[in-house]
């Protein structure tokens, strides 16, 4: 690709063909004023502020839409250009309030900046001004039409990046304004309140409420860090003034390219919730009372020590947290193993991706997304199965949507008509729990029609013959019987995935949270290997991780069978390495998983627990039993930022610092290790988890010396080959993607290029098995559970966010219109959903998003806790519970008189 020579402001500039004059100037360090142009968006050349003078051109040209030509001579600030710009600014000001003195945007307003730059004090075109009332119908941001300069950035953001098209220009001439279809409030439009429109608004027309009146840009400090919600690993800025959190805005991180979702953008005000724990609590006479750190730490250490000394190390259990940093997770598992002598350490990954870990370890020898998020842009086919990405991983969901609009084929397999299914080329709406049959069916077609990658199968994998034999039993007709997916549709989908390469598979809890979770994952690995979609750009097997640091918590060894870096505890060689480094003997038997710990506690075998940043009282299946288990413990210490349902049962509560108040690293779903930066002081006497764990360790007789998280990472790098080259100093703004074995290694965004960690990829045939509980006469429907966009996990953060909880205050159970009609249930009615384990009262949402016979209940709401209902039946390999399928029934409940639904 050659380059073109042009002259800008007398400078010789080289530009690539196809570049615009604007880009060429920018690369040469010449800034051209602009309002409608934005690097994330297409160019429309509408604002006329980027006009430049091009020699021999008839008129001034809009540089953002003028391609460079060889020999062009450009002036960006000639007198003629400056005159034109002044006119443009003056015209904009003719219809813009002169309220900079009180405008929230002052200081970062682009119109204000250019008015200053070109000395336009006021408009020279006085006249009528628009005066529409602002749209302040939603709790997140305000649209003030009077300030809008009609640059269209918000419109393009919504259409091009988010794929929502909630707003566009409407009306004509002077009356033109940006609004929704039929001019309804945003709340009634397809808007998902990602707020990315507000992030690109050059003026004060779109303003997050949280910022209004809290000081202007120059009074705030902006700290770049990582979002604490899902696993995408979005970079964001925390805006802080006088140690008070104001709000968040997107930062241009590698995962999110300057985009956020509603939770990251508007859901962080839990940081300043009055519910934050600010002092240690001790149980005295049945109640929790404030205590000193000394008392609390002593009590915690004593409780754990007593249980260990009296009943042995197996009587102690530790739950680490996917909300804690890598360094904290490392120390927490070290505390369990080295200080308490038990492998009973686990965290909520057990409840989300244990089956991914088990399955992909067997198939590849490594369990994480094989390809980076950015590869979505390179895929020709995207198969999304059991992942409601638009709601659970919104920034990835938006990117998948964008890839589809770009031309990639989109196949969505989901029992619900989730957002992505609405725009997919093919939606395979299979019955819950029939994933193996569906995936085997797709693989069957690949083999049957010769669409598989024979060279890849031959050269990179083993076990094909046996797999092919098992797949014979999954012809489309039989798969249709099992899954309910029409055979023709299955064949079409298989042909798309088989022929449009590279193709990437994305999956999440819809695959993993089954008694067949490991089998489901293996079936996915088989399909991807058959298509040769591994080790290449734009391909891959991509499990989307739910918690911001669930990948890191696994990496760091907060798992009962693995030491840090996925080194098995029962491998003497690996164990020996850690024993030498830590100077202790380590237990050789794998410990108990989360669900097994609860079982052991209920049986009275587990006596004491230390739970960090987890809330099993809402997150675990069959809550009735969890409560019973936790109450049976002799001793329970809980460390959290809120008094969660679990912390309320504790003997000692240790108040922790939030993500915004500490340092360390998080590892996102794409294996990217990123730096967390401290923006605030912890409230009251709360302390970073790392400090608390170190205090506890020293009271358990450990002489650990770490000068902060960076020193912990140093030790981790020495013991974890995949993190070998990682140090805080190297991470910068983009972080590093593991495996990164040495300090000069650039990281490995795409895995398995030459070989799999286990050598050849292993094709492991799996047979369809029914879910543990299927509908019967007594419980005739299927209940499935999951997330909604506006809330997160057990709600301890999102429900303490003003905007999120105002927008979605309560749970709704989704029920298909036909089922609703049969049961005489109308939208908004109170119903009772019951299973063999419990029942909840909740309002119904009648919608065909869910299939006939299938109920969907989000699990965020304590007052309608989905996990009172779910089945604790476990996957035999990964020990993950079957959250996604159980038999249930639903009936109209007495309609409350302004009352509220309480669980049970």
């Amino acid at each position, binding site marked *: 690709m050659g380059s073109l020579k042009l002259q800008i402001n007398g400078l010789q500039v080289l530009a690539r063909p196809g570049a615009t004059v604007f880009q060429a100037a920018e690369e040469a360090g010449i800034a051209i004023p602009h309002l409608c142009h934005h690097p994330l968006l297409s160019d429309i050349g509408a604002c006329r502020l980027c006009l430049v003078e091009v020699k021999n051109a008839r008129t001034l040209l809009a540089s953002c839409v003028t391609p460079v030509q060889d020999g062009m001579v450009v002036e960006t600030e000639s007198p003629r250009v400056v005159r034109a710009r002044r006119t443009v600014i003056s015209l904009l000001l003719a219809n813009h309030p002169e309220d900079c003195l009180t405008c929230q945007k002052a200081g970062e307003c682009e119109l204000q900046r250019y008015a200053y730059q070109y000395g336009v004090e006021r408009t020279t075109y006085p006249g009528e001004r628009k005066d529409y009332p602002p749209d302040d119908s939603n709790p997140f941001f305000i649209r003030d039409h009077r300030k809008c300069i009609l640059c269209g950035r918000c419109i393009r953001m919504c259409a091009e990046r988010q794929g929502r*098209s909630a*707003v566009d220009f*409407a009306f*004509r001439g002077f009356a033109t304004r940006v609004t*929704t279809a*039929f*001019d309804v409030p945003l709340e009634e439009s397809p808007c998902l309140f990602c707020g990315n429109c507000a992030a690109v608004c050059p003026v004060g027309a779109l303003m997050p409420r949280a910022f209004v009146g809290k000081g202007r840009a120059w009074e705030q400090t902006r700290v770049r860090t990582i979002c604490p919600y899902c696993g995408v690993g979005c970079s964001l800025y925390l805006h802080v003034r006088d140690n008070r959190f104001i709000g968040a805005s997107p930062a241009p991180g590698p995962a999110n390219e300057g985009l956020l979702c509603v939770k990251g953008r508007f859901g962080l005000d839990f940081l300043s919730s009055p519910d934050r724990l600010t002092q240690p609590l001790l149980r005295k006479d049945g109640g929790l009372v404030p205590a000193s750190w000394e008392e609390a730490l002593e009590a915690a250490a004593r409780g754990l020590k007593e249980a260990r000394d009296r009943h042995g190390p197996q009587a102690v259990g530790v739950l680490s947290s996917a909300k804690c940093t890598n360094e904290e997770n490392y120390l927490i598992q070290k505390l369990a193993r080295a200080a308490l002598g038990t492998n009973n350490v686990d965290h909520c990954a057990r409840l989300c991706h244990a089956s991914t870990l088990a399955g992909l370890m067997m198939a590849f020898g490594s369990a994480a997304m094989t390809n980076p998020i950015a590869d979505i842009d390179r895929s020709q086919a995207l198969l999304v199965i059991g992942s409601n990405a638009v709601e659970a991983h919104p920034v990835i969901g938006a990117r998948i949507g964008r890839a589809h609009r770009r031309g990639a084929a989109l196949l969505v397999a989901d029992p619900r008509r989730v957002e992505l299914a609405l725009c997919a080329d093919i939606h395979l709406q299979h019955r819950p729990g029939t994933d193996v049959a569906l995936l085997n069916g797709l693989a069957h077609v690949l083999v049957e029609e010769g669409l598989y990658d024979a060279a890849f199968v031959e050269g990179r994998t083993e076990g094909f013959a046996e797999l092919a034999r098992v797949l014979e039993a999954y012809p489309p007709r039989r798969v249709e019987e099992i899954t309910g997916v029409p055979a023709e549709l299955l064949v079409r989908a298989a042909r798309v995935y088989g022929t449009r390469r590279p193709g990437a598979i994305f999956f999440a809890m819809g695959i993993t949270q089954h008694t067949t979770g490991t089998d489901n994952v293996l079936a996915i690995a088989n399909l991807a290997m058959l298509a040769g979609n591994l080790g290449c750009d734009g391909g891959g097997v991509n499990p989307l991780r739910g918690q911001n640091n669930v990948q890191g918590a696994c990496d760091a060894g907060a798992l009962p069978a693995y030491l840090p870096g996925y080194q098995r505890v029962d491998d003497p060689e690996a164990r020996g390495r850690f024993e030498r480094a830590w100077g202790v003997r380590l237990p050789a038997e794998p410990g108990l998983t989360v669900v097994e710990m609860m079982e052991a506690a209920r049986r009275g075998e587990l006596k004491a627990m230390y739970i960090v940043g987890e809330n099993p009282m809402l997150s675990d299946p069959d809550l009735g039993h969890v409560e019973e288990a936790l109450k049976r413990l002799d001793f329970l210490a809980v460390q959290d930022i809120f008094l969660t349902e679990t912390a309320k049962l504790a003997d000692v509560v240790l108040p922790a610092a939030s993500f915004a108040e500490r340092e360390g690293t998080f590892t996102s779903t794409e294996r990217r290790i990123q730096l967390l930066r401290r923006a605030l002081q912890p409230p009251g006497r709360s302390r970073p988890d790392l400090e608390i764990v170190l205090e506890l360790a020293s009271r358990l007789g450990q002489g650990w010396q770490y000068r902060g998280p960076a020193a912990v990472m140093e030790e981790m790098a020495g013991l974890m080959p995949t993190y070998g080259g990682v140090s805080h100093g190297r991470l910068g703004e983009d972080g590093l993607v593991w495996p990164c074995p040495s300090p000069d290694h650039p990281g490995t965004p795409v895995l398995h290029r030459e070989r799999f960690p286990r050598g050849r990829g292993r094709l492991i045939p799996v047979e369809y098995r029914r879910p543990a509980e299927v509908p019967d006469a007594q419980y005739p429907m299927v209940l499935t559970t999951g997330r909604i966009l506006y809330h997160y996990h057990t709600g301890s953060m999102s429900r303490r966010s003003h905007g999120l909880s105002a927008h979605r205050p309560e749970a709704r159970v989704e029920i298909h219109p036909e089922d609703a009609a049969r049961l005489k249930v109308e939208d908004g009615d109170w119903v009772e959903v019951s299973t063999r384990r419990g029942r909840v009262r909740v309002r119904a949402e009648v919608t065909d998003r869910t299939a006939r016979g299938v109920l969907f209940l989000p699990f965020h709401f304590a007052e309608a806790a989905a996990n009172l209902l779910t089945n604790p039946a476990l996957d035999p390999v990964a020990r993950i519970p079957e959250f996604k399928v159980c038999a249930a029934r639903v009936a109209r409940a007495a309609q409350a008189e302004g009352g509220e639904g309480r669980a049970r």
Partner: protein
Amino acid sequence: MRGEPVEDSGKLGALLDRYRGQPGALIPLLQDIQREMGYLPRPALEEAARALGLPAVKVYGVATFYAQFHLKPRGRHVCRVCLGTACHVRGGERILSRVSADLGIAPGDTTPDRAFTLERVACLGACGLSPAMMVDDQTFGRLTPDKASRLLRRFAREAPDGGGGGGRTAE
């Protein structure tokens, strides 16, 4: 306008089928719908968006941009009173206020019985006949307020032409 049923959805379906999957055909489709239904009801616009594969807001944007499209029901007769230069000079304003008073509506509105829609226009190109007005596709000139009133009464007596709307827009 919200929630108003789509009148005669069979005919609408046929119109949609003609352009289904062709986002570029938005304007012809809107013209067809308006010809059929007299205006562009919200449900019809939503259906149009789905049929063409366009966001509803794009359809709304186009429908509100062009003066030829009407999002409110139109009367069976459209009465356009000219206030162009010539008509203005020769008392168009008096014609408009009489017509407005007779119909009991302001310019831009439609009578509750949907008999008439009243519009003020800049010039009908009939300056030689000023003051002038059009009712549907007929032009009437050299008006006095009384003449205008008589004309309205005449049109009001006429039977509505065809069932579902049918108010013709003379372009």
